[in-house]
């Protein structure tokens, strides 16, 4: 499974309140989340997310269990997230909705070309290739299917 996109660099400890604030959760309209993603962190960030690979510091997605956070990133056009570590609920949520994650610590400049080969466990950023911590076979299978719901429907 291969993903590529332009790097959007973010710091460590990005919490789910920063990804999508609590005041926008009471809706099923995903365009609301797309519009307000990262609003309190940087109001201009949303525009740069289409086709992006987020490259963040450690502990990305900490805080609440709100699945609207990875959904907001996905509907905003984020193709994958790379970070040295993820908060565990965010990690499961992202895989479950078909948003690929890669655990790696890499240097990031905004706009760098990022290529990820999840099956091979490799990432290339600005021409430099390195290993990522491999995902479990179960997670790779889920991502390949596009998330838990389609994986579930395929199996039954």
């Amino acid at each position, binding site marked *: 499974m291969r993903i590529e996109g332009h790097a959007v660099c973010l710091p460590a400890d990005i919490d789910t309140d920063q990804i999508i604030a609590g005041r926008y959760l009471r809706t099923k309209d995903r365009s609301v989340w797309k519009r307000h993603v990262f609003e309190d962190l940087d109001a201009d960030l949303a525009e740069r997310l289409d086709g992006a690979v987020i490259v963040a510091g450690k502990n990305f997605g900490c805080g609440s269990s709100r699945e609207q956070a990875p959904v907001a990133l996905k509907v905003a056009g984020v193709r994958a997230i790379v970070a040295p570590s993820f*908060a565990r609920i965010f990690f499961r949520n992202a895989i479950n909705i078909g948003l690929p994650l890669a655990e790696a610590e890499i240097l990031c400049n905004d706009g760098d070309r990022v290529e990820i080969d999840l099956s091979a466990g490799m990432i290339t950023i600005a021409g430099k290739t390195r290993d990522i911590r491999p995902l479990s076979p179960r997670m790779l299978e889920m991502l390949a299917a596009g998330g838990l719901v389609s994986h579930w429907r395929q199996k039954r």
Partner: protein
Amino acid sequence: MPSLSERILAGVAGEYVDREVDRAYVHDGTGVLTYETWRALGTGEVARPSRVYVLFDHIVPANNSTTADLQHELRNFALFHGLQFSDIGGGICHQLMGEGIALPGEIIAGADSHTCTLGAFGAFATGVGATDMAAIVASGMTWFRIPDTIGLIFSGTLSGGAEAKDLALTYVARLGMDGATYRALEFIGDGVSSLSMDSRLTICNLSVETGAKTGMFYADQVTREYLMAYGQETAIQDPPDRTYNQEYPFDLGAIEPVIAVSPRVDTIRPVDELAGIPLDQIFVGTCTNGRYEDLSRFAAVVRGKKVKVRTIIGPASRSIMSKAARTGVLSDLIAAGCTILPPGCGPCLGAHMGVIGEGEICLSTSNRNFRNRMGVGGEIYLSSVATAAASAIRGEITSPGGMV
């Protein structure tokens, strides 16, 4: 010897296992997306309706038509499928599950990060997202990676103005916001027996703020007596005679009143160092500190006095509110000028009742002080109930020393 997580999940750390979930719950915030995803699965089935709980607490009563419509839909789902349902006013999901439902040794999944609160009973309780929960509702099962365990070894007893919340903030600061990511915490040692169930619930509640999957106490005589009052006869879990790869000792007698300053839970300062900072709002409540012990402690300080800053009290459940009414705690709070909310999460997540304005500072007994969480441009400082009470009387951050 195996950790409590390894015992309950029946495997060894690092292993991936599929397990039946003993109890699963959602609230009105995460329930909507869970229901939507469950419908997308297309099975139309709820595996074990008697083990699935829908508990309204996040925006209660509904604040506008959109929320009302979403709650209406979720309520109908719960009632149609015969799920265990608590409507507005019942209380916070974690508290309700802690009133004689969650039991030692159980595997519990909740669609909320603070599900780890129930580790206080010696259960393996952890937060999941809506899609995981939808699959649990449909199948009764989920997968876990059995976590490594970090031991927090307690000795001595809390003293002076310090309470369980100060201990909790202190260990979060020691471990850091991601110090326990993918791992579980176990609270053991001689100091444990002096901690009430209410205190243990507070201590476990904060474990997710270190990134932990859960934080657990071994069920002991205190647990047993607490559950007995709810008619639950439970066994004691013997703590292991073991060491941990990572251990942190805590002398409870040395714990001081602290405040976690905006915007990080792991950044604490002694209350004394912050004394005098003027406050715009005080909030006492939530799944962290909205229990009877908390309300009672607050009332003991403000009884017969007037609060000097707007003060919001949110009892964590109807039974807590009811007990506070019976014992006179509630009327003491009202007489002191506090505003009482219906049982629920109140303003903690910034969506409802008690949102703060730009430039305002709220001293809160909740568990998160993230930027803008309780209102855009507002700052949240986290403290114990005793610190909140002393501060309410002065209208500024005040050390609880001598007032409790």
